[in-house]
Each structure stands twice: as structure tokens, then as C-alpha cells.
């Protein structure tokens, strides 16, 4: 009887932990539920197509226009632009850390990368606004320093740590046997990196890149403070844009409760959520495939 008791107790404890472990799923479920609940009513007013592809965002006019295409384009452009900066820098830094840096150097640089990751985004946004923007405006003689380029620069800075540290893990975990095999055949270190290490760690590196971009597309404060906020398609690098998170953050407080504007902002949140959700699923799929086939995949 006493045995049974202890066994039952263990079962209860296990189930309790299981229950708690579901917290993440539940939270995710609630997020999805409430996002959709508050966002979907806008589609009584505009069709999904008009919402997503509409060119005009005049939520407070009479009659209003709820087209978030410029916002989506703003988000995508800013993300791509920042990726063109952050991917090379992040992956190259990762290569440096994993393959070239002396252990001592690695010990110093890795924490620095982690520190960058922990800088509050509002500080980076603030920096972009008060230091970088006037600088850009002066150097390039443009109407405003708060623009796509500035935002991309700041976003790149924010996503580099993600890209760098995840790729570094992937690169570092390439088995030494492959490194030795290549060097033993008379390859230089660089040739080894390019022909063996990178191909072998490509899935880890791509996961890193996707997660980095996911971070950039969802980042709020930086684009809110730095992107300039014009809800129009940009024609040049230095045009202001209004990415989705910026629009939500700037307008939510002003939108009358459960009004059309409010619902439209939630619907924008849904679109943003779907974007990042796809990024994460892809990253997860790559990471999963990578795990199954072991450390030596092509």
C-alpha cells in the first residue's frame, strides 16, 4: 500500500509538471485566439484582399481606408535591407569566433555579442533617432534621417547577435574529424572553411539567419522611433517607411476601443504574427532535419 502511494504520488507529480509544461502552448493558443478574435471583425468592413493589398492606410479618415500593403512592404524591405547587413556580418563574426579566434579572444568576444543582444531596443531606437538620424541627414543631404536605411542599420545591429551566436554554435559543432581530414589533404584553413565547414553547418547557419530575420521583422521600438513612419511605398533607400509593428505601437493607444481602427490594428498584428510564425516553422523544420541526419549533412 505504501508502495502504491509513493508510486501514485510520483505519477501526480509527473502529471503536474506535464500540465505546467503546457503553459507555453496555452499561452501561444491564447495569443492566437485573442489576436484573431479582435482582428477578424475588420473583415466585415474590408475584404482580406483589400486589407492586405490595399495601398492606402487612412484609418481615421471618413470614410477610412484600411490597406496595409505599404506597411507590409515597409516591413519586408526593412527586413531584407537589414539582412543584407546582418547576415554577412553575423556569419562572418561567427566564423571568426569559431574558426580563427584564439580561445582567449573567443572568451572575450562571445560575451560582447551576448551583450549586444541584451541592449534594450528602445536604447537602440533612441540612438538611431538622436545620433544616427542627424548624421545621415547631414552626410547624404536628405529630407529626414529617420528612414528605411537608418532603421535597417539599427535592426541589423539587433539581429547580428542572434545570427552570430546560433551560427557559431553550428559551426563550432562541426566535428573536428572533418577539419583534420581537410587540412590533412593540404587544404588551407580558408579552403577548409569554405568547402567543408560551411557546407556541413549550412542548416544551422540558415536557421540562425531565419531566426535573425524573424527577430528583425517583429522588432517594434526601433522601427517605431527610426523608420520615419510614412505609410507609402518607398522609392529609395532613404525614404521613410511604416513597418507593421511601428504602426501598431503608434496607433493602438489612439484607436477607439473595439472600433474599426482597433480591429484593423489587431488584424495587422495577425499578419505580423503569421509572418513570424512562418519564419519560425521554417527554422524549426531546418533545425529538425539537421538533427535527424547528424552532424554531417550537406
Amino acid at each position, binding site marked *: 500500500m505504501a508502495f502504491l502511494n509513493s508510486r501514485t504520488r510520483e505519477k501526480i507529480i509527473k502529471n503536474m509538471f506535464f500540465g505546467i509544461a503546457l503553459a507555453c502552448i496555452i499561452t501561444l493558443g491564447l495569443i492566437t485566439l485573442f489576436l484573431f478574435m479582435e482582428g477578424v471583425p475588420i473583415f466585415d468592413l474590408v475584404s482580406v484582399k483589400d486589407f492586405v493589398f490595399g495601398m*492606402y*492606410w*487612412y*484609418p*481615421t*479618415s*471618413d470614410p477610412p481606408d484600411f490597406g496595409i500593403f*505599404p506597411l507590409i512592404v515597409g516591413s519586408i524591405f526593412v527586413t531584407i535591407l537589414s539582412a543584407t547587413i546582418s547576415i554577412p556580418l553575423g556569419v562572418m563574426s561567427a566564423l571568426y569566433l569559431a574558426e580563427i579566434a584564439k580561445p582567449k579572444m573567443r572568451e572575450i568576444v562571445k560575451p560582447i555579442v551576448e551583450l549586444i543582444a541584451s541592449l534594450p531596443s528602445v536604447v537602440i531606437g533612441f540612438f538611431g533617432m538622436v545620433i544616427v538620424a*542627424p548624421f545621415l*541627414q547631414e552626410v547624404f543631404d536628405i*529630407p*529626414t534621417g*529617420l528612414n528605411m536605411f537608418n532603421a535597417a542599420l539599427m535592426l541589423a545591429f539587433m539581429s547580428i547577435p542572434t545570427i552570430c551566436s546560433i551560427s557559431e554554435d553550428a559551426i563550432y559543432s562541426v566535428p573536428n574529424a572533418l577539419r583534420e581530414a581537410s587540412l590533412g589533404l593540404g587544404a588551407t584553413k580558408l579552403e577548409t572553411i569554405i568547402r567543408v565547414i560551411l557546407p556541413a553547418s549550412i542548416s544551422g547557419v540558415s536557421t540562425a539567419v531565419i531566426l535573425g530575420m524573424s527577430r528583425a521583422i517583429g522588432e517594434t521600438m526601433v522601427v517605431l522611433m527610426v523608420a*520615419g*513612419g*510614412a*505609410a*507609402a511605398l518607398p522609392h529609395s533607400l532613404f*525614404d*521613410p517607411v*511604416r513597418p507593421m509593428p511601428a504602426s501598431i505601437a*503608434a*496607433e493602438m*493607444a*489612439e*484607436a*477607439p*476601443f473595439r*472600433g474599426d*481602427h482597433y480591429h484593423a490594428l489587431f488584424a495587422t498584428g495577425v499578419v505580423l504574427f503569421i509572418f513570424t510564425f512562418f519564419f519560425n516553422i521554417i527554422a524549426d523544420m531546418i533545425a529538425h532535419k539537421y538533427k535527424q541526419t547528424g552532424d554531417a549533412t550537406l
Partner: protein
Amino acid sequence: GKLVIKGSTTVLPIAQKVGEAFMKQNPDVELSISGGGSGNGIKAIIDGTTDIADASRFIKDKEVKLAIEKGSYPVPFRVAYDCIVPIVHPSNNVKDLSLDQLKGIYKGEIKNWKEVGGPDLKIVVVSRDTSSGTYEVWEGKVMNKERVAPSALIQASNGAVAQAVAGNKYAIGYIGLGYMNSEVKAVSANGVVGSKETTLNGAFPISRPLFMFTQGWPEGDTVNFLNFVLHPEKGQKLVEEAGYVPLY
């Protein structure tokens, strides 16, 4: 007691200035002031989550209906006037613009300063967030319900607009009277210079009253606060200090 004030970012500086002075006189009052916009304030009044709602526009019919359904009766108090002044870079020689010209510029139809008698320079349009009360007034009184071109630079506050125009010789913007400074140049509208007098006598075409709403007739700290705001020697002095046009 606790006193929560929410709403219009335009009224926010008034609420804050007056609130600080009010707290000095009534140290036991725990004051919380937030912006959030006129709509947000009125929503909070309807929900009963705030004591006072600031608004830079009058309550809408829809909102009144909603309030009555929930059994609350918002009471408006006019606390100040605001006038919105077009501004340009000090180096710009343009002195006056008609409302039609302003509308043309903001619609994106007038693209060069020389079309309105200025230098041969491209016009860079600076505007406010579409969801600000200030923008709503601009849209209503200048644009006649037509829209500001989406390519306009968007700034989040009056101060930011002033800054943007001060640093850019192509730019035009609009700000509340309280934000005027020497780094920007005010332009008269339809020949009328924006000032306290032209606002009060109604000559300046782009002006509006500012409100505070309460839920039902105010009592306790709330009524004390509103009396303080409306007091010609106390609140209204601070309104003027904040750069707005006092009621009297």
C-alpha cells in the same frame, strides 16, 4: 485619493502642468496621467477606468450612444483653445499661404516652393500621425476631408514636427501655437496670423477647443481638479504657460 487622467496627447501638457500644481496643493492625491489619444480617453470614460478624459475633439455620436448603453453620462468641460500654425524653415521667404495652397501642398499636388511664390526648391511635407487629434483637425479644416499624401514625413508629436522643419530648408509643417520657437517661421493662413487673439475671436481658420470629460457630474477630487483647471488665476495661467490659448 486616486485621480486618473487619460486621453489626448494634445491636452496632455495642460493636464500635466495643472496636475503638478494641483498635487502641490493636495499632497494626498495620487495622480496618474497618460496620453493615449482622445479616443482612448473617451473609451476609458465609457468603461469607467478613468476619472477624467482629455480630448482634443468633441465626443462622437457613436461614443455617446455606447456610453449611455453602459449607463454613464460623459460631461464635457472646455478647458482651452488650440490653434494650428503652418511653419517653414526660417530661410524660406514664403509668408502667407491660402488654405487652398496648403491643401495642394499636403495633397502632393504642389511640389515646388516656386509654385507658391517661394524659392525653386522641392517641398518636403511634414505631417502628424493620422491618428492624432491634431491631424484630424488639419484634415478637417485644411484638407476638407481630402487626404494628406502618404509620402509625407510622419512625426509623432508637435515638438518633433518643429524639429524636423527647423532642420530642413525644404520642409513645411504644422504645430500647435505652444510649440512656436525662433528656429521655425510661422506662415499666416488666408492672411491671418495665428495668435491668441485671432484664435479667441475666431479669425484664424485652423483652431479648435480642447476638452476634459468626466463620467457624470464630477465629485470629490475630480471636481476640485476641474475647478482648479478652470480657475482664471490658477489653471488658466498654466494653460497659457503650456503654450495654449486660455479660455479668457
